[in-house]
């Protein structure tokens, strides 16, 4: 007789949460799958918000000398668009994939520290809410001594110093009001969330792999999670320190970045980009991982050059720490530094090229099934190559001094982060949809989404290359009619609305298919990795018994042999094996111990915004409340066991 061990009804401070359905079960969950799903929905919500901000920007820029937004509103919108998309949309949506898939891909029952996982999610939520509360409470205005013709609206009271927060413009003198404090402290809180999960994933990958899952048998997506976690662990402390400096400069009279106090505004640029460039790889490597899963599955071929793709990923991550000053080629750096960082930037193109050629090698000679995930992965290659090549033109330092701070750069990084990261993410969302929900999405709607998006995307960001070369400078609220930039700006704005339309199609598909989609079965793609060897939707215990892995792409080799030509032949036993796996997956034969839900992660996380407000408004009571919440959270956490005691020989001890 199998049972899931019920938590004993005892607890120390609070009664241990015990609901298995309803809102409280989600708030107190420590299940990596539920946390992943919550990450996904929250990130998608912020993606929509960031998208709306982008649409406002595009309406403003659709014609020259437009007055749809005020300067303050425009600056707030581009700051929040960048900040939101990077920290509240793409990073957490990647975290959704990490959370949901990582344990499944390595055959584990959960991550190494399930409550830490919940903590990281709730810190992310509170960080996002804190940052966005600037629209309610924040203030912004003219630089000290400057004049405004009209009062700054609520929309304009958001942070307005750019997502890059260059000093001294983002300092207290030139960005008075509290908006930029919300930005600095908000990012600080969000950084903690990412740091916590980075350590969690590193530990999980190192310690929780199932029997036989050697490092070089791990799926590439797991490898990229590993690389991203290291990037986070090493780059976030840099921005954390820099943000503390900013907050101290703004609040407590230090002068780290203020020339008049002996500080250096260029120091901020170095610190910011020493974080900011690895951050680019934090955003793109998960997509590399997703694409490396999708292409082999839909080509019915193994990944071409698996070791090369893995090592190229780590090569990119490593070199990614040595290219930061290419964001500063026009800034105050010497020609020697320009040459050095120009060369290192060229070097990073090599492992990136290796990946692209290996992906092409994967689909070459395959039997390509052009389902939606595959379309997005193929689109990813096409679009990312464009972003990569325009990236190489940035390493040509003299040329970059023409292009930097223009729309050419905007085009470049949207080809990388939208054409790259987001296309990869959409590919993954469709690919694993049946695994998460047990239902199949609507293929026709999926394809409509893809075609609308790729057309809208190129219409939006393609002409930006041209606009940048024609001299349209970034972060400009208006451009003069005489610059003759109006026509292409209008096209770009039309493209942005086509993207918005494609997102609506995606949402319709998602909502419809979640309810009415046909049952997917547990292996709809005839896939290669072990997360497809368990029932869909994934049972709460993941694997009913810890799988033993014998090779790379283990699940595929359970189903297929190769004939003398090296072509796959389905094993006779495959169908029987599938039935057996499904039967076993739903009915575990052993006692299963799962981590119990807990109140403490959310309590601990809720203390952080109070500390943030306390710093901004210098209010001691808020600091006390925040500290108390953190203390209660950590004390309760520390005295509460992860799993309640149980009897029986659960094998996943």
């Amino acid at each position, binding site marked *: 007789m199998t049972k899931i061990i019920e938590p004993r009804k005892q607890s120390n401070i609070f009664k241990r949460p015990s609901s298995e359905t309803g809102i409280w079960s989600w708030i107190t969950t420590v299940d990596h799958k539920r946390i992943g799903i919550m990450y996904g929905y929250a990130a998608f919500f912020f993606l929509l918000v960031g998208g709306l901000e982008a649409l406002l920007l595009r309406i403003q820029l659709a014609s020259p000398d437009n007055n749809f937004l005020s*300067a303050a509103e425009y600056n707030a919108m581009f700051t929040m668009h960048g900040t939101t998309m990077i920290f509240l949309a793409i990073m957490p949506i990647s975290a959704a994939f990490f959370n949901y898939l990582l344990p499944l891909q390595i055959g584990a029952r959960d991550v190494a520290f399930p409550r830490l996982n919940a903590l990281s999610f709730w810190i992310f939520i509170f960080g996002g809410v804190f940052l966005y509360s600037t629209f309610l409470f924040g203030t912004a205005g003219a*630089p000290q001594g*400057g*004049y405004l*013709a009209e009062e700054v609206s609520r929309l304009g009271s958001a942070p307005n110093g750019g997502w890059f927060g*260059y000093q001294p*413009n983002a300092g207290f003198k*030139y960005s008075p009001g509290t908006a930029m404090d919300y930005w600095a402290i908000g990012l600080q809180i969000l950084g903690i969330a990412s740091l916590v999960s980075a350590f969690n994933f590193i530990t999980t990958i190192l310690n929780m792999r199932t029997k036989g899952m050697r490092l070089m048998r791990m799926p590439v997506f797991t490898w990229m999670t590993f690389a991203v976690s290291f990037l986070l662990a090493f780059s976030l402390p840099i921005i954390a320190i820099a943000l503390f400096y900013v907050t101290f400069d703004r609040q407590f009279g230090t002068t780290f970045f203020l*020339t008049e106090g002996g500080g250096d*505004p260029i120091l901020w640029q170095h610190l910011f980009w020493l974080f900011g460039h690895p951050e680019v790889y934090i955003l793109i490597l998960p997509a590399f991982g997703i694409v490396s899963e999708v292409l082999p599955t839909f*080509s*019915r*071929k*193994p990944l*071409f*050059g*698996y070791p*090369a793709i893995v090592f190229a990923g780590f090569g990119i991550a490593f070199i990614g720490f040595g290219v930061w000053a290419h964001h500063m080629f*026009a*800034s*105050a750096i*010497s*020609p020697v530094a*320009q040459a050095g960082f*120009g*060369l290192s930037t*060229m070097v990073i*193109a*090599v492992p990136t090229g290796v990946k692209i*050629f290996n992906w092409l*090698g994967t*689909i070459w*000679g*395959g*039997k*390509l099934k052009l389902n939606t995930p595959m379309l997005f992965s193929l689109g990813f290659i*096409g679009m990312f190559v464009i972003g990569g*090549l325009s990236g190489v*033109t940035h*390493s040509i*330092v*003299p*040329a970059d*001094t*023409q292009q930097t*701070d*223009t729309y050419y750069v905007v085009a470049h990084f949207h080809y990388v982060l939208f054409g790259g990261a987001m296309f990869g993410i959409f590919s993954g969302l469709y690919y694993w949809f049946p695994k998460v929900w047990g239902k199949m999405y609507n293929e026709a709607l999926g394809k409509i989404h893809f075609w609308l998006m790729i057309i809208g995307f190129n219409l939006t960001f393609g002409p930006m290359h041209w606009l940048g070369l*024609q*001299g349209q*400078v970034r*972060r*400009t609220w*208006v451009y003069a009619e005489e610059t*003759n930039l109006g026509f*292409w700006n209008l096209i770009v704005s039309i493209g942005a609305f086509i993207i918005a339309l494609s997102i609506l199609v995606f949402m319709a598909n998602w909502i419809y298919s979640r309810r009415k989609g046909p049952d997917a079965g547990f292996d709809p793609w005839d896939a290669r990795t072990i997360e497809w060897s368990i029932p869909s939707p994934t049972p709460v215990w993941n694997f009913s018994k810890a799988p033993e892995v014998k090779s790379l792409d283990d699940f595929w080799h359970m189903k297929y042999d*190769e004939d003398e*030509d*090296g*072509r*796959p032949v389905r094993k006779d036993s495959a169908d029987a094996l599938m039935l057996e796996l499904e039967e076993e997956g739903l009915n575990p034969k052993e006692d299963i111990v799962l981590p119990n839900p807990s109140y403490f992660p959310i309590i601990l996380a809720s203390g952080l915004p109070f500390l943030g407000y306390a710093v901004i408004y210098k209010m001691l009571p808020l600091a006390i409340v925040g500290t108390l919440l953190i203390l209660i959270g950590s004390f309760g956490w520390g005295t509460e066991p992860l799993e309640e005691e149980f009897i029986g020989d659960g094998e996943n001890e």
Partner: protein
Amino acid sequence: MKLFKDKKIFLLSFLFLSSCIEDAPLDSLSPAGPYARSIDELFWLTFWIAVGVFAIVQGALLFSVFYFKERESSPEPKQIHGNNFLEILWTIIPVLILAVIAVPTVRTIFDLAREPEDALKIEVIGHQWWFEYKYPDFGITTANVLVIPEDRPVRLEMWSNDVLHNYWVPKLNGKRYLVPGQTTYLNLQADSPEEFWAQCGEYCGLSHSKMRGRVISMTEEDFASWVANEQSYAQKELPESSLAAEGQVVYLNAGCTQCHVIDGVWDVQGDRIAPNLTHFANRSVFAGAALKNNPENLTKWLANPAEIKPGTFMPNLELTEKEINALIAYLGTLK
């Protein structure tokens, strides 16, 4: 062509072509001097290499999609795990291509940074939201419009008075930051007499988009006479009862002199936080080159500067219409 029978397609391609040909004053692909030209050559070299790589990769991608697409007759594919020779090949070839680009890149970096011999030195000072220019050799201070001799290198020594700015004259050279507390350098040189546009590249606050400029290159003779004129006071005797004389009174009494200087008027010397207005009437633009210098724009500006440039440090002095007209008449005499 059949394609062009369709009027819409014809119209669209016409729009496409015309918008490509149209003159964009900030176009970085129309170099008008040796510095910009050396960058341009480097860009096109890289561009065509990139186009080659683009064609190969997208070609292989599209070919695969159409050729290897699943068909009823498709056999199961051979399970190929990799190919060391190919993988080494496509690691080395990009390295070689990049080496080809790297050599001229590094050379151009150092060429552009070198201080040219016999260069005219000009100081550029960034302010929120306008560029100030000083010619230390001639003792000239001016704003918004930089005047340079044609065919002679100019060495800009730049810094900022407040936040970071980024000086950019696309047709003459790339960008360079203006940093508070540090000096940065940029060389300019124009082939022939022409008016160029400048623009601040780095986000510098509320009116960043309106921090623009003009650069005018002149023949040596024109430049010499421009210098001579700038060195003299613009102030001439004003007829007592003229509108311009009333304007001067407004200028002296309304508070303008708190921030502005007109050399030779009143007894102010030295720097103020706002543009030096000594030869204001000779400048084609004002207010950070956001506006053309004409009475209509001046009226708008003087009525409420923050309406044009949000965040500006120029207050609304609540001048009457009469005072504004007088001021404009007075400013018109500052040649």
